[in-house]
């Protein structure tokens, strides 16, 4: 018993090593992964890394330019905003907000969409009809407008944003996962499971779920970028993360106040952060799509 477990874990270790080697050889997106890793690191250790409190500024130090520009100083490397808050510290804590909201929203959407997609695809009949009609209708709503509508109802807070984004984006999963399940359930191993007397519940949990996991992960990676842009847009419009929390979208909204005066760093820097994060997530997602899920290559 023990021996066989050790052998199987060694085999798993070997497969893992083999996979990693294969990953490296086939154009593994090193730079995007590194950028995401750095952003995660920055988000986790924001308290240690940030030189100042991101929510409290000194009004005497308003609109300091970055250190390398005339008038900038070493005490605020990336300058200060309209309330004299340190831009670098706000960007660092903003990474945390984006990461937390982005990951949680993708998880909420993923769990909801995958569950409903499996139910819809496997059970068929009226369950399928109801779920798919709702999915079609919700997909017809422009995502941002729908999110704004929901935000106007429940009010802005970080947790509400997660729920709203989850409610808006689960339909993307449900559609794709359902299609996947429809072809899976015709496969022999599922028929065998039915003959063996597995309940529908067991089949969905033990046979459908593991087989759609790859697709769900690919979708989640691609969705991360979309969700982060939507969060930034909501914050920018004032229905996202409430101030004075340092969210990148919120910083852009504040930056607009100094735009005409030429305070470029308040607009350019948060946008660059969003761009790097979204671009990295998309590149990684694209690569994962080709790697993990040949069926999605055509998408």
């Amino acid at each position, binding site marked *: 018993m023990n021996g066989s477990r050790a052998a199987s874990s060694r085999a798993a270790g070997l497969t893992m090593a083999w996979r990693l080697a294969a990953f490296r050889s086939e154009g593994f997106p090193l730079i995007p992964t590194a950028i995401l890793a750095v952003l995660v690191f920055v988000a986790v250790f924001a308290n240690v890394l940030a030189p100042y409190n991101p929510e409290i500024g000194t009004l005497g130090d308003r609109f300091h330019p970055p250190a390398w520009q005339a008038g900038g100083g070493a005490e605020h490397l990336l300058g200060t905003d309209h309330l004299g808050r340190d831009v670098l510290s706000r960007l660092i804590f903003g990474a945390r907000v984006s990461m937390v909201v982005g990951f949680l929203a993708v998880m909420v959407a993923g769990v909801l969409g995958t569950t409903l997609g499996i139910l819809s695809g496997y059970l068929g009949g009226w369950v399928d009809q109801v779920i798919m009609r709702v999915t079609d*209708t919700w997909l017809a709503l422009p995502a941002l407008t729908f999110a*704004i*509508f929901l935000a*106007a*109802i429940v009010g802005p807070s970080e947790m509400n944003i997660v729920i709203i984004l989850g409610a808006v984006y689960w339909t993307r999963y449900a559609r794709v996962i359902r299609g996947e399940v429809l072809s899976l359930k015709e496969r022999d191993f599922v028929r065998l499971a039915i003959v063996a007397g597995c309940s529908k519940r067991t089949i969905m949990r033990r046979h459908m779920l593991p087989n759609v996991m790859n697709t769900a992960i690919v979708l989640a990676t691609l969705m991360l970028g979309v969700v982060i842009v939507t969060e930034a847009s909501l914050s920018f419009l004032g229905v996202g993360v409430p101030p004075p929390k340092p969210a990148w979208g919120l910083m852009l909204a504040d930056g607009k106040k100094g*735009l005409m005066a030429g305070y470029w760093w308040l607009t350019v820097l948060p946008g660059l952060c969003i761009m790097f994060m979204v671009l990295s997530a998309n590149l990684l997602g694209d690569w994962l799509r080709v790697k993990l899920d040949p069926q999605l290559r055509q998408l």
Partner: protein
Amino acid sequence: MKRFVLKRLGFAIVSLFLLSLTIFVFVRLTGDPAVLLVEPGASAADLAEIRTQFGLDRPLWVQYGSFVTHMLRGDFGQSFYYRTPVFELYLSRLPHSLLLAAVAMAFSLVIGIPTGVIAAVRVNRWWDSAGKVFALLGLSLPSFWVGLLLILFFSVYLGWLPSSGSGTTLHVIMPAFALGWYFAAAHMRLTRSSMLEVLGSEYVKLARLKGLPEALVIGKHALKNALIPVLTLAGINLVLMVNVAVVVETVFAWPGIGRLLYEGIAFRDFPIVQATVLLGGAMIVVVNLIVDVLYAVIDPRIRYER
């Protein structure tokens, strides 16, 4: 054909029903809809009056019935801020949104189609990779950030273009570019894949065998067919542009529907928010229906497929 159209029409009606139901349910999900429908800071007496006026004390299905019949008559309630019917406001803003969307669409096609064709003709070469990077950037850069950068560069540093407002030709350039940017990438990707498919077809091979110059084969014979899916997508995207421009319109203070939605949020004017979402969704359902039917008219195979 008739059966197909009726079936699609049925789907569209179900979608519109679910759309109104979604909005109706969400408004009532958080407890008291009177709080949303009344102006912020209203007294308890006002709240009670709103409840009887909107019949919020009646059973839910009666409420839903009156909600739908009001909408069908074009009655989306009164704006708190503007003191006019929301539907009138919507219609007065619609032309601005359409203008912006049309110019943005022109931008996106002028950029997207040629780059897509080049990427397809020079597949897996330098041009193709450049096109991929461009498409990825288009899909990754938030449109409002592109807008802000445009303002910074063209209004603040160069002083060439007005940073906000509307009225002259100059005003429409930057918002249209910021809005069209994302769609240009989408159109480029579709042009590329559609062109690649057409270039592999028999009739293109025949045209080449005939000895036609390559420019003529691609520019005339292949392009015509390759553009069909692109133009379909463009038609759907035009409607989408009207409805997703909220951030761009806010950045440039462009008086369209997006800006109306933003004002709805900023002034806590809930009837505006509700109407914008409903009408936006309805518009897209209708366009999808039209596209489906048109496709069935053009291509008989689709009629019998489902």
